[in-house]
């Protein structure tokens, strides 16, 4: 059976503000689950509840069917929203320390630390105090800290913020390696293009409620508008008068249009072919940004 990290009807309020309202979603083993939402939507609170930093008012968090305990949490790799490591400790020392606190033996922790230092290209700086590193390198060290104990689950709050494109690639490579080994990865991000590129599954949260959750492709299909793109050799202006067609954009030979539910896309294609060669025709799938905008309102 595939292992699943599950939030089940988790609610939490701070004072009179309901921050999470019946939040349920799953993070499946071996998949990258992107967690998106506006600032204050409840991403960080959800992650802190998973990590046992906050308690839910109601609902529960389970891993492979069992209630979350400290023993399980010790096997999670966590990257908090606001970056935190010891400024005056060397990268290597803090990796070793955190690994030991997560229950790793002395030799295993040394081995893992060297492996991560090399993989994340921190080799030359591993003996320097963290505060002497560039922000990008500090971020890499933070990721190494989340991975030091070979976690069974990864929970990363905004892991890509503050990374340059090269570092993003390095981190993606490392995370992919983990999902390939069957680790579920939950990561939040407000950079929708990064999420678009990376996630297998997507969870959209707004005002403390889950607005959409599922496989990326499935979500795109579900939220696809009856929208099409057509490129012909001549002028596509005739579409304006075609029954059931609502033109969205027309630029000479290129057109983007919506179809009435009753209208048949194949019939539009035939009409186009009857007027001359068709260079491109097909449905337009929405970007994550569009889905996000649609569901998060």
């Amino acid at each position: 059976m595939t292992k699943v990290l599950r939030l089940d009807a988790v609610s939490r309020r701070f004072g009179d503000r309901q921050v999470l309202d019946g939040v349920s979603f799953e993070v499946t083993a071996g998949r990258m689950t992107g967690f998106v939402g506006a600032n204050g939507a409840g991403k960080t609170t959800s992650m802190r509840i998973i990590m046992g930093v906050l308690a839910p008012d109601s609902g529960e968090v389970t891993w492979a069917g069992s209630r979350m305990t400290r023993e399980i949490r010790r096997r999670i790799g966590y990257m908090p929203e606001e970056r935190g490591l010891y400024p005056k400790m060397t990268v290597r020392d803090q990796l070793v320390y955190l690994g030991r606190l997560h229950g790793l033996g002395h030799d295993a922790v040394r081995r893992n630390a060297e492996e991560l230092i090399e993989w994340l290209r921190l080799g030359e700086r591993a003996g320097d105090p963290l505060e002497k590193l560039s922000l990008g390198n500090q971020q890499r060290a933070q990721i190494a800290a989340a991975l030091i104990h070979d976690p069974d689950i990864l929970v990363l709050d905004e892991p890509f913020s503050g990374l340059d494109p090269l570092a993003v690639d390095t981190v993606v490579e490392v995370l992919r390696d983990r999902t390939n080994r069957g680790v579920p990865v939950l990561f939040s991000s407000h950079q929708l293009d990064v999420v678009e590129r990376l996630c297998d599954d997507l969870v959209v949260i707004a005002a403390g409620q889950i607005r959409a959750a599922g496989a990326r492709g499935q979500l795109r299909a579900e939220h696809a508008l009856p929208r099409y793109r057509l490129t012909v050799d001549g002028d596509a202006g005739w579409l304006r008068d075609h029954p059931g067609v609502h033109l969205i954009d027309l630029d000479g030979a290129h057109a983007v249009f919506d179809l009435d539910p009753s209208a048949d896309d194949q019939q539009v294609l035939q009409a186009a072919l009857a007027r001359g060669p068709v260079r491109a025709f097909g449905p337009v799938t929405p970007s994550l940004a569009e889905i996000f905008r649609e569901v998060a309102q």
Partner: protein
Amino acid sequence: MNTFEAVRIVAAREIRVKLRDKAFLFSTVFFLLFAVAATVAPALLSGGASTVAVVGTAPAALGAAGLDVRTVADEAAARAQVRDGDVDAALLSDGTVIALTDAPNDLVNALSTRPAVELLDPSAVDETLAVMVPMFFGLIFFSVSLMFGLQIAQSVTEEKQTRVVEILVASVPVRVLLAGKVLAGTVLAFGQIALIAVVALAGMRIAGGDSGLLTLLAPAIGWFLPFFLIGFVMLAAMWAAVGALVNRQEDLSGASMPVQILVLLPFFAVTMFSGDPAVLKVLSYVPFSAPTAMPARLFQGDAAGWEPVLSLVLLAATTVAVLVAGARVYEGSLLRSNGRTSMAAAWRDREARRLADLETESA
């Protein structure tokens, strides 16, 4: 990994970091030099026996007192040598002692006859020492608990400020962090004191100091150690709690003011009232001043045998209560990230309790 193992790992990190801290190393070296200077230097500076120019035959008493005797021809030669600083003093044939500014004590003592003295109620302790020793205990307890206490608070604030604490509490209980920090602070403070004590004692031995003083000090120091240990743990729990209240190092001095006062006031009280047995007796039972006041009374020979035991029990009981309260404030404020937490808010915060309950339910 059990709780003790986790506490050990946390404490080991604190100690490692401190042992690499230049300020800590510098202060330790400074204290050690101070201890050496205070014990060895007086013997070196006193310069040994005086030299005496004697006109005529030197009385046997001078040689017996170990004075450096030189025979000179006449009074004029003796005066010249004293004036030139070749000798400390001169003894003329009529028994007159000549010196430049004041006569050396060892020479005057060697030439004097003393009456037999019998004291009916001998005071074991020199009056200067009766003031100096309590001050010394006070100074050590005050400076060490202030320095190491502040470092505990800073280390707590650092973890909160950098949010590394979120990673930590996901893997170990909050109380383990607290215990590790208090343990590390205590080990470091105690270690530094022990090192200074060893160096000071060795210095006294090398300098050939007063062994009678050592005999008098021994029981006071013997009791000072357990009082110091427990008293420090009590203060350490308070320092950790105030460290957790603030989000930034800059706010620490304000938030820790009550604890600073609890360290400072007893120090001044014990120093000021070291000559007043009644006040000192009260102070020796108040947990915050007991670690310095009780050893002081023991040194002055004013405390009965059972008194330090009772005072230590009181101190230990208070320490347990402070640990429980400190842990609650620490738990209640450590994960609150929105600015400075008030003591009352930290006390009322139930997040830690709820998380612990969840943990028990799930287990």
